[in-house]
């Protein structure tokens, strides 16, 4: 190859590298964006529809042909819902308290317990550790239904039926939390921990002062998964006293109130879905940071 030709080739390659995205054609990009946009619209449509029907006044809800967007949006459905809930003999605030209590205690407890386990699994090599972690990865596959019946029997034997603990304590052991936390903690440099130990810190101080502050993104991820599970938990098999029922359960009782409650039912749907979505939006970047280490190595 002549020198000139070689030079030209190198220049060509540099040109390729300088392009913002090599190997991409304009037309291809256009179709990709168009496709993504159409799918996104289809994905979001049911959610938009749900929000809009919560904002529709009663006459619009039954209009034919139906309109997707509310013409005169009002918050009447939400205020009606509060009136209905206010009339039940268990006050509305009690339901909110139940759910918030369960979600809060369940999330905090899970975060602490799972992080403690994840810390030693990620950073120390001790007999049985690997095996235990493998068991946890297998447990990722148990959809709750497989264990539902024995779980009920165990909780019954413990005497936790009809208490908050029936929902809170099992949720502490959610495998996905430990899994994600462990994978994320593996990225922490060991030298950080050793340095602290040389300075005379105990294991507990290392855990609380060094490890935990460094894995804040993983906290948020565990929190979103846990909140999502607990907030939507109807717990109908474990809790039967009216005053201990969760908000979602109570709301769904309103929802099944027939055609007169159509508007309120729509409002319920929005309340139930909005909380996990908002938490996700607020913590998106941290969650993605954690998920980057979520891979399963064999």
């Amino acid at each position, binding site marked *: 190859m002549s020198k000139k030709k070689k030079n030209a080739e190198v220049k060509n390659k540099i040109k*390729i*590298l300088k392009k913002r*995205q*090599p*190997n*991409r054609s304009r037309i291809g990009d256009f179709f*990709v964006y168009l496709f*993504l946009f159409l*799918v*996104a619209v289809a*994905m*979001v449509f*049911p*959610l938009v529809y*749900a929000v809009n029907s919560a904002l529709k006044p009663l006459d619009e809800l039954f209009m034919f042909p*139906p309109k997707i967007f509310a013409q005169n949006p009002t918050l009447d459905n939400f205020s009606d819902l509060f009136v209905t809930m206010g009339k039940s003999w268990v006050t509305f605030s009690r339901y909110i308290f139940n759910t918030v209590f369960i979600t809060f205690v369940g999330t905090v407890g899970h975060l602490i317990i*799972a992080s*403690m*386990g994840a*810390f*030693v699994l990620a950073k120390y090599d*001790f*007999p*049985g550790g690997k095996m235990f972690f493998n*068991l946890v990865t*297998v447990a990722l*596959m*148990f*959809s709750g*239904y497989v*264990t539902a*019946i*024995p*779980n009920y*029997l*165990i909780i019954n034997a413990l005497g936790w039926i009809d208490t908050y603990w029936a929902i809170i*304590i099992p949720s*502490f*052991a959610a*495998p*996905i939390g430990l899994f994600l936390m462990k994978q994320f903690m593996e990225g922490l440099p060991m030298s950080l921990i050793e340095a602290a130990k040389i300075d005379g810190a105990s*294991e507990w101080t290392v855990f609380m002062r060094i490890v935990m502050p460094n894995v804040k993104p993983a906290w948020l991820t565990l929190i979103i998964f846990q909140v*999502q599970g607990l*907030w*939507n938990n109807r717990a109908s098999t474990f809790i039967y006293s009216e005053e201990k029922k969760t908000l979602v359960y109570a709301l*769904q009782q309103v929802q099944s109130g027939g055609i007169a409650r159509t508007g309120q039912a729509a409002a319920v*749907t929005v309340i139930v*879905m909005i909380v996990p*979505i908002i938490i*996700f939006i607020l913590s*998106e970047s941290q969650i*993605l*940071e954690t*998920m*980057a280490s*979520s*891979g*399963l*190595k*064999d």
Partner: protein
Amino acid sequence: MKEYIKKYFILRRHNFEVNVKKAKRSKMCYLFLAPYAILFTMFYIVPVVSSIFLSFTYYNILESPTFVGLQNYISLILEDDIFLTGVKNTFMIAVITGPLGYIMSFLFAWLINEIPRWIRTIAIVVFYAPSIAGNVFVIFSIFFRGDAYGYVNAFLMSWGITDAPILWLTNPTYMLPICMIVILWMSLGTGFLSFVAGLQGIDKSQYEAGYMDGIKNRWQELWFITLPNMKPMLMFGAVMAITQSFGVCDVTMQLCGYPSTDYAARTVVTHLFDYGYSRFEMGYASAIATLLFLIMILCNKAIQSLLRRVGT
């Protein structure tokens, strides 16, 4: 030969002693792990083991379990037609929505990866929201309502495609496909997030090296660089997809009713629900759970060995 066996046992004993010593030195580790390990054993390991045990008994909660051998399994497979319908439906759903949802998760994660940052942030929320939105999917029962007021029926009739409303959620022909659409709508979940995060973490210099080595289009780039880098995430996503697609029951139960017409939307988990919580035949229900569990593990092993070949 004898010597080998002797040596083997000496080695085993030595390993054991080393492990015991190690264990003694790492007391702290066990202490840290203990709270989680105890709860995990109580609510994950014991239930699975006891579920396997109960599956060989007749148990109705009131009386103590009596051993019946393989009777539960025999009646499940040979006598219970509804269970077989459930298995068929679950497999249909799993075989279609599982891989499709998985591929969708990856495809959208991959496409999203290239768009500018602020649009990407919004796109992730849009795609992920359906899977965390609780029971919003009941909205679909309004779209697919059986009378002329349902959106889909109204649309089809106004375009003259049908002249009478179709009973989408009570006609066995349409029930499963509609459930599948809804499940696919919700399938961009945890696995999707994992893919998005994994794609952002791939080293850019690998792509540059790839361009130098003559990779010509985005498909080659995908196969030779992106996929091999994503293997661990692909595994994780596969586990999530399998769990979801075999555990389907909420969607079918809430959209098509429980029980559904002709049991056309019955899944394995619905059947488990039926026997566990409506008829209180816990032994029988445990047999269903055990079978489901076995199928899920086998499926997972198969898919993992398949994924190992990606990009090679």
